[in-house]
């Protein structure tokens, strides 16, 4: 592997790429090539990861979030090494005649070359548009030079589920958010469906009127300790309940035979035995799960479609700026993780 790469060379190759695509289109019809771009999406992962999965996610995102995609693959090595390649990914949407293409840059770097990367990525970012950095691994996030790389991005997306201890990770994220950085955590994004189900229950005005009765929230999860997602859900619920005038506490219920970190049950109970009792329970094989939503004696079941990288990232890219609800919940989640 080479030790240096020239951003100017990569930009030149990108320009050539579009000229080629332009020539391959139908210039005689005056169509040319019109590029639309909404951001630069930088994805950071381990070299050992299968990049085809990542590129598939990029391709799926492109119609809704057209971007210049830069994938940086890190190799644990103390020797400086950098290399790059440029290519495009095109696809023909069903029923259409026009191809959609996006430009892609893949950079392979050793850990030791991390300090060299900001000066490479900065010129590659599309002018005037947001830069979003998606960090897929805990190891790279923990490298000494990572904050300098992340500082190029307006928003950093990561997944605390793969970052190790929830309390420590949430504390670090909260610290960075308080320092003014815009952070998104896919563990929070996974809670969107849970939050939607809770919100839908209280669209019923008679239930909403009784929300202040709730004194206890129980969250069931796989593993021995609550995951970041569990803390987020607990934090969000407590904030919402406080907003409705309820004074509630959270009780954590470890569940057996459940994948570690996965949420399986949520209960919101009033103190009185005949008071409001709400529960959401998720069951079934992975990929074929359903959620049972029960309010007192009334129950209904709904499909609980699985999340994947595409659906999670799609949601996060739709929020270009700060997400105040997430940031508020993050702060509360840190307190919960420290025994509030």
């Amino acid at each position, binding site marked *: 592997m080479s030790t240096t790469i020239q951003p100017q060379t990569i930009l030149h190759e990108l*320009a050539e790429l*579009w000229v080629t695509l*332009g020539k391959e289109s139908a210039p005689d019809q005056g169509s040319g090539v019109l590029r639309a771009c909404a951001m630069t999406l930088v994805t950071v992962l381990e070299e050992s990861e299968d990049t085809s999965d990542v590129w598939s996610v990029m391709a799926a995102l492109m119609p*809704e979030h057209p971007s210049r995609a830069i994938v940086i693959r890190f190799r644990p090595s103390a020797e400086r090494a950098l290399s790059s390649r440029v290519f495009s990914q095109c696809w023909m949407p069903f029923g259409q005649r026009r191809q959609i293409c996006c430009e892609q840059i893949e950079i392979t770097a050793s850990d030791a070359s991390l300090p060299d990367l900001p000066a490479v990525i900065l010129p590659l970012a599309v002018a005037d548009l947001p830069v979003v950095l998606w960090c897929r691994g805990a190891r790279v996030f923990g490298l000494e030079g990572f904050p300098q790389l992340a500082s190029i991005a307006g928003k950093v997306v990561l997944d605390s589920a793969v970052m190790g201890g929830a309390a420590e990770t949430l504390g670090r994220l909260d610290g960075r958010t308080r320092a003014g950085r815009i952070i998104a955590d896919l563990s929070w994004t996974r809670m969107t469906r849970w939050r939607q189900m809770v919100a839908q229950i209280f669209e019923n005005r008679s239930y909403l009127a009784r929300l202040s009765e709730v004194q206890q929230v129980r969250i069931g999860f796989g593993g021995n300790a609550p995951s970041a997602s569990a803390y987020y859900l607990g934090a969000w619920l407590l904030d919402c309940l406080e907003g409705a005038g309820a004074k509630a506490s959270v009780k954590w219920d470890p569940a057996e035979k459940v994948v570690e970190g996965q949420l399986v049950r949520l209960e919101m109970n009033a103190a009185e035995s005949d008071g409001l009792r709400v529960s959401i329970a998720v069951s079934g094989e992975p990929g074929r799960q359903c959620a049972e939503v029960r309010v007192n004696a009334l129950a209904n079941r709904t499909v609980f479609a699985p999340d994947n990288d595409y659906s999670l990232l799609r949601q996060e890219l739709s929020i270009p700026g700060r997400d105040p609800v997430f940031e508020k919940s993050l702060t509360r989640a840190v307190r919960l993780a420290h025994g509030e």
Partner: protein
Amino acid sequence: MVVIFGANGDLTKRKLLPALYRLAYERRLSPGFAVLGISRTPMTDDQFREKMSSSVEQFLEDSPFDKEVWTGFARSLFYMAGDVSDPQTFSKLAARVREIDAERHTGGNVLFYLSTQPSQYGEAAKGIGDAGLATGQGWRRIVIEKPFGHNLASARELSEKLHQVFRESEVYRIDHYLGKETVQNILAFRFGNGIFEPLWNRRYVNSVQITGAESIGVEGRGAYYQEAGALRDMIQNHLLQIMATTAMEPSATFQPDAVRDERAKLLRTIRIMKPSEVLENSVPGQYGPARIGGADVPGFRQEPGVGPESQTETYAAATFFVDNWRWAGVPFFVRTGKRLPKRVTEIAIQFNAAPYAVFGEHGDETTPNLLILRIQPEEGISLRFLSKRPGAGMKLRPVSMDFNYGSSFGERSPTAYETLLLDAMIGDATLYTRQDMVEASWAVVEPILNVWHEHKFDFPNYASGTWGPKESDDMLARHGHTWRRP
């Protein structure tokens, strides 16, 4: 006939001959066309042809090298050894011009191209005049490269020397930026489209940013650059000309002098800074060492030929105001620098934000519309606007829509030198700089140079690979703006 002084130099090899060859390739040159190269190195015509053949093959941009076309073109190349400081050179030159004229039937038209040291311009013009070459059967024109003086007084002095031999209409001061397709397209864009011109004024335009960034350092030109600096090297000529083209009033016709009159008028309306205003409205910078893309790059003071305490600026930024009805109060932020993150020359016109935040809770409404005119490396135009994100809800986000010359037309754009050389041959001076324009831009730049010269700056003040010194960001912040990221 084109007579090139300095025919063994880099400019001839890299730009002039490849451009002339390409014009021949496109059959834009008349059959009697000829090139006579002059430099001090002794060489025969055939040796010159051989040397130029390999240069053209090496430096031809986006174009095939056709051996058959070259063979025909090479027959029009001639060479004579001569020193500009030796009067004998010009009498020999006169004889050689007559000889080639007789052989090729050039019609007596001669374009003198001075690709020499600027200090030799006056001497070369005098030699041409003394040898009786400035007049003749056909037209006579002279092309000179920048710098056109190193300040207002020396620019006037140079003009006086040239005017002793040539009329102003025969002097072609070349600024290769103006030959670029997108710079010409500014005029087409502004005056050929009904939708933009009504917006092109203080009522709708919030500010204009002009960036001329280089990713490389001085690359062996340290000794020259140490005497010039970024303000002289880029802003005084290229960037002020671009600014004038962007902001000028429409000309009544597209005749060369009508367009140049408007450009000159604009340059004369740029507010001249008082000495007390200079440090508030301009920022010099100098790059320090850094690592870029895994390679160590030296700081300016570590470059060969540069003094370890050099005060020469490799970065310059300034805030200009145009005192006329159209642009009153609109700041024009101009910056240039070496060792910036990427090579890019762009004009960004920032429009006022929408007057009322109707989508205030749903999107980033502080993002104003931006129109970007990209001059290099990818010539094109982009428009940034807010768009509703697909899906439920009214969430807005900025989107950039690009028009790219290369990919949209699917055909090669001529290089700036092809355009400008052909224009000089056909007598179209629209894209050339006139003496009054040179003087007007020196009048703008000179007060800044004078104040900078009196100060000792704490250089280096920006790391290579970054977008310049913090003081430059502060200058924009004082006006309530930020530099965009090109």
